[in-house]
């Protein structure tokens, strides 16, 4: 039986997902779902998107085997190099799909939320390419720690608005983007950056990101002479890079799927089911259902919720969601740079940190890690931390 399926008509993955949005947005979500179904079944749309992904984003991304780290850890470590995509992360896969879809729907404007700025940069890029206007909401805390990406977005012609409400991070940027969308829904598409939000976003974003897993599965079969990796590891904030790479392995292999959450933002690890941002999913909340603030060194993972399909995969035991600490992440970030000459995004350093910690239990195993973004954006922050 297939686990990686379409959600139910109500947008549910098991008991998770749904469409908990203000009434104003219900018709917009329905319209988006219909437009996506239509486009996704249209060979012309798929062909145009694939052409952009190859000629503009640089797909397929390659695999890199990390011989130095692999030797010292006693495993075979293989990276899926989404960091080498145009704009520096996997976010471009989803954004090109959504921007093309928005254009097909006659929308002229994109709004987006961003944490680390990678999704904001990708959205600004797609808007520039396709001639759309773009506004990006970013928590004031993140504007501070990711100033380089803020300037990149502005260079690309996007308007960046710092969000000062609530915890002033990713969750509040989502709130503000939703408020914008409620007011501008006729001309605006909300270009959501992860496998979260109301139906059809979790499913649609997964479909746009599953190319990561499909490529990686085929590439691993070739590299491993027909075998599959034993572990597939990715970091999880909202969970789009993880859903992307898991998609290639959920049904077709028995690989253990590991989604690594930050200790301070462990929705699956510490959360209970709740409803925010349009979806029912695991959520960090207090005894009255107030959403708690996440605390992570990485702006991209600083989110108290998680995409509903991850909650589903956790609930049926098909994927596991361990946590790592900020200190483990800082060490892994430096280790990767020195041992392999690759500076990972702080988000991906979470996946690396878990691999380093668990390597003694994985001796001789093949571990595939999604390197979903590059670390250029984090160099300033690390310079301050490391002195």
């Amino acid at each position, binding site marked *: 039986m297939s686990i990686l399926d379409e959600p139910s008509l*109500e947008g549910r993955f098991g008991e998770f997902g*749904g*469409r*908990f*949005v*203000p*009434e*104003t*947005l*219900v*018709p*917009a979500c329905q319209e988006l779902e219909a437009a996506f179904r239509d486009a996704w079944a249209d060979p012309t749309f798929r062909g145009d998107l694939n052409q952009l992904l190859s000629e503009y984003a640089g797909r397929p991304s390659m695999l890199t085997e990390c011989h130095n780290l692999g030797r010292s850890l006693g495993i075979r470590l293989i990276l899926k190099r989404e960091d080498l995509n145009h704009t520096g992360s996997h976010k471009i896969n989803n954004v090109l799909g959504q921007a093309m879809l928005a254009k097909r729907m006659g929308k002229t404007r994109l709004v987006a939320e961003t944490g680390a700025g990678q999704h904001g940069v990708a959205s600004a890029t797609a808007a520039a390419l396709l001639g759309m206007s773009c506004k990006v909401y970013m928590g004031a805390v993140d504007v501070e720690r990711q100033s380089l990406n803020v300037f990149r977005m502005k260079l690309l012609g996007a308007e960046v608005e710092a969000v000062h*409400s*609530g915890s002033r991070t990713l*969750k*509040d940027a989502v*709130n503000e983007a*939703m*408020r914008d969308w*409620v*007011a*501008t*829904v*006729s001309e605006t598409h909300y270009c959501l950056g992860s496998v979260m939000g109301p139906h059809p976003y979790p499913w649609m974003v997964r479909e746009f990101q599953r190319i990561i897993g499909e490529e990686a599965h085929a590439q691993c079969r070739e590299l491993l002479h027909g075998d599959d990796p034993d572990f597939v590891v990715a970091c999880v904030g909202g969970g789009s890079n993880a859903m992307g790479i898991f998609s290639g392995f959920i049904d077709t292999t028995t690989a253990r799927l590991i989604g690594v959450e930050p200790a301070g933002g462990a929705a699956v690890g510490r959360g*209970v*089911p*709740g*409803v*925010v*941002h*349009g979806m*029912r999913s695991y*959520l960090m*909340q207090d005894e*009255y*259902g*107030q*959403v*708690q603030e996440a605390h992570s060194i990485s702006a991209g993972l600083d989110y108290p919720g998680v995409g509903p399909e991850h909650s589903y995969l956790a609930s049926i035991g098909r994927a596991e969601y361990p946590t790592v600490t900020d200190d483990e992440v800082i060490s892994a970030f430096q280790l990767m740079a020195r041992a392999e000459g690759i500076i990972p995004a702080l988000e991906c350093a979470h996946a690396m940190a878990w691999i380093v910690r668990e390597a003694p239990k994985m001796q001789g195993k093949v571990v595939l890690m999604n390197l979903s973004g590059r670390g250029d954006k984090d160099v300033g922050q690390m310079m301050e931390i490391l002195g």
Partner: protein
Amino acid sequence: MSFGRMETEFRAKRDQGRKLLVPYVTGGLTGWQQAIRAAADAGADAIEIGIPFSDPVMDGPIIQEASQRALDAGVTPVSIFEEARELEVGIPLAVMCYYNTIHHAGHERFAYQLVSAGISAAIVPDLPLEESGPWCAAADAAGIETVMLAAPTAPDDRLPRIAARSRGFLYSVGLLGVTGERNSLAASATALAKRLKAVTDVPVLVGVGVSNAAQAREACLVADGVIQGASVVRRLMDGGPEAVGEYVAEVRAAITF
């Protein structure tokens, strides 16, 4: 069918030619109980009590700030219910709360908490028709009236279905956007109220973006009444409960035709 307390009163008042006025007050905000008493004395027909939530996506800056102030002061749904019980204002009370507050407490338990606090109705702005089944079942069983929202974006065939599920009254969202004060009443406010009046006899009240007495009067030319949120909450934060009473009296006068 038999109606709950709020809908029974609203229908009777409407049939007597009275326009319905529902001020919104953020629960737990300094002076909130006095503000509710002042509003009731000044001619409100029901009160909407906002339950502060960490992520109020349908609210603009004023109600966001009020919610944050209340949360920072340690206000919880339970503390609001305890204080609401003491109100005894003689008009029905409704809560406006985001769905996670209900979901986290549990549907049956939350409905029971409302009943115990003397609250008649619930307005849940992020619980659209398609997701409302489990809560509405629990609310119906407990005798809590669930007010549904209709928005200007809804196609014609959606409106009767929303109206059919609404209890107490039907909340006609005045504009595309979040709560907050605007310079003028959006054209969509009266347009949607008109569309709703054509398909239902449930009382239709316009809320979101009805910002002063003149706009309330304009909305009431078509609708059965108005909900006033940000303009009330701002007065409570700036001028205290007396300012709320004066304002409600001003609006009441303006919608008395």
